[in-house]
């Protein structure tokens, strides 16, 4: 099989993984070596596909042959998609030749499970080893780890990778056992726990004074599929909060289940609206950077996030007694709860108000989304008055639905 054909099959097989991040790792460059590559703190997206996703890494599977039968997956053993397998050298060469042309930040490699979890993991780790040791490659490497692989292999993976991930796939044990029968929710969590221990240990240089071996400096992440079964947003967010808390994940990715070639008849035909995925990300940010608890964000009986407004606005509407917030007096934690006000602008307000009172014009020049904020804030030259309690407020704050772009737009 030609390299081009393999690349097509194995990129097709990898595209349902939402993550393509090249961020969060240590900063490196090649100034002192004969190799190639560097990393930046924020990561770089080298391109974007029309699906709105960033292309930062060469995201491929080593092979899409797989022994498992995860119902939602395009590579499951019972699917009839074409199969291919890269050799280790092919992946290494492809990564380097893309990297030299500045197409990518590095490699995100995962694999279907062939022969055994250990055998598969060994192959994946070998690609990373060759890149690092034989080519002195200093770009980004993200390896998908297989939870059933041996702890020694996970340890080796962490030596070469900037980030490791294990997909939790589904938010509850029940959905996992019905949709991914060979996967073991307990084993996944045990592996995440092991990774966390090693990641923590690699940062802790105190007790002997010696620097511990490098281990996945960009931490670990995971992915959850949304909309493949009936799990509600509340359960999803609680699962995320638990993952962030217990395993200190850097990111939980949400991937709206989407139609795949040769789908299993068990799956729903209808995929969830993409905006649901977007709202979950917004809620996830509220938990990580805005001091919200998972249980505060969803209070409705259905356990779902509103689709027609962002979760912070929805929360504010349900807690109107807390508003208006005085921009010049409120503590930081309260400012962070004002709809439309981001972390950066909160910083700017805190800094500016030490010099003089912040006025409406100031917020306009900071390019804050004024219309969304006005009903909830108070300034020397603005008071929301009755608008805050008006029954028409929710309707006013609804986002006009974007064109349904997911399907059929160009039919």
């Amino acid at each position, binding site marked *: 099989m030609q390299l081009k054909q393999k690349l*097509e099959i194995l990129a097709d097989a990898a595209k349902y993984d939402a993550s393509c991040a090249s961020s969060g790792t240590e900063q490196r460059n090649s100034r002192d070596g004969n190799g190639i590559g560097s990393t930046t703190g924020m990561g770089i997206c080298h*391109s974007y596909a029309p699906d*709105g996703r960033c292309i930062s890494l060469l995201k491929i599977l080593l092979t899409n042959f797989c022994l498992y039968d995860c119902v939602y997956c395009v590579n499951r053993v019972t699917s009839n998609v074409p199969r291919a397998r890269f050799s280790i050298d092919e992946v290494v060469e492809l990564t380097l030749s893309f990297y030299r042309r*500045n197409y990518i930040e590095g490699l995100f490699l995962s694999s279907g499970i062939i022969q055994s979890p250990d055998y598969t993991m060994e192959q994946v780790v070998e690609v990373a080893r060759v890149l690092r040791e034989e080519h002195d490659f200093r770009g980004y490497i993200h390896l998908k780890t297989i939870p059933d692989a041996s702890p020694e292999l996970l340890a080796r993976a962490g030596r070469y990778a900037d980030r490791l991930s294990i997909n939790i796939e589904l938010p509850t044990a029940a959905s996992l056992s019905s949709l991914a029968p060979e996967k073991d929710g307990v084993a996944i969590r045990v592996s995440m726990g092991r990774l966390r221990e090693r990641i923590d240990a690699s940062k802790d240089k105190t007790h002997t004074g010696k620097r511990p071996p490098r281990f996945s400096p960009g931490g670990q992440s995971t992915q959850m599929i949304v909309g493949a079964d009936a799990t509600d947003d509340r359960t999803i967010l609680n699962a995320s909060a638990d993952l962030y808390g217990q395993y200190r994940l850097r990111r939980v990715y949400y991937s709206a289940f989407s139609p795949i070639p040769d789908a299993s008849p068990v799956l729903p035909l209808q995929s969830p609206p993409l905006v649901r995925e977007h709202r979950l990300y917004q809620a996830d940010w509220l938990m990580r950077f805005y001091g919200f608890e998972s249980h505060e964000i969803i209070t409705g009986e259905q356990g779902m996030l509103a689709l027609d407004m962002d979760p912070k606005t929805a929360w504010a509407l349900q807690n109107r007694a807390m508003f208006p917030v005085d921009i010049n007096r409120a503590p930081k934690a309260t400012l962070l709860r004002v709809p439309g006000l981001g972390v950066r602008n909160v910083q*700017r307000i805190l800094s*500016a108000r030490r010099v003089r009172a912040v006025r409406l014009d100031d917020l306009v020049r900071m390019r804050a989304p004024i219309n969304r904020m006005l009903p909830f804030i108070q300034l020397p030259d603005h008071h929301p008055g009755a608008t805050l309690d008006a029954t028409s407020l929710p309707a006013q704050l609804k986002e006009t639905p974007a064109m349904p772009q997911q399907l*059929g737009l160009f039919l």
Partner: protein
Amino acid sequence: METVYLHHETDMDGWRDAARRLILAGVAPYDVHWCVRPTEESIAQGEIFAMPSAESVPDTQAPPAKDGQQLMVSKQFVELARMVILHCATDRFGLLYRVLWRCQRERGLMRLTGDADVARLHAMAKAVGRDKHKMKAFVRFRETVVEGRPRYLAWFEPEHHIMAAIAPFFIGRFISMDWTIMSPRIGMHWDGKALQFLPGGMPEALPEEDASEALWLSYYRHIFNPARLKLKAMQKEMPKKYWHNLPEAELIEELIAEAGARTQAMLERPPEAPRRKIVGYKRKPD
């Protein structure tokens, strides 16, 4: 009216020296005219594109002037000035001087992000930062062979004067490669040891696409999921003005046009029984 001649578009040293002298002499912003010497002359002098660095911006540690007066310069101003000087707006030198002038009189000015001048500095710094970031992302090299060694060539059109400021990034990443990045105003060439700036060029000098670029196009085509179109999200991060330098952009229209039919076909296709013989997988007993 005083006229200050700067040596080139990003002449931080020249700006700093003049600004310090003018402030201490009490020359008001509307009495200063800032201009840059014509480019050819500067290239002839070989001094173009000195990198603005932290040291070349006035700071509070600078030795006091003869009469004992000291400049009031906050760290925020220094950081912003290093970015703003790379901006393409021709009034940037005057704007920076006006803010520096105001800083001598208005305490805490740099903290007022809502002040019109300060807000403009922030907006300009942000635009420069974005331009730099996009250049790191969207430069595309093509490979050619010169005197038996591979050389990587790219054409890129930055909006601001960021070429010199971006050089350390490309050197640190591609230190062992020979590469050249050209733009209409200026080019730069790295030969594995030293960086050299060149006069501006033409995109026609790029070599033809090679096999790796064809593979990259295949990758782009196949990593795209036709069942989700988010065109606004794509264009927000990869605006059309960059497309003509991105080889993969030529596929975008076609991918969008086919997406609906491809998705529909996936949905309508009746489920198929596996064509291979499936041996049930058994986990190893623990």
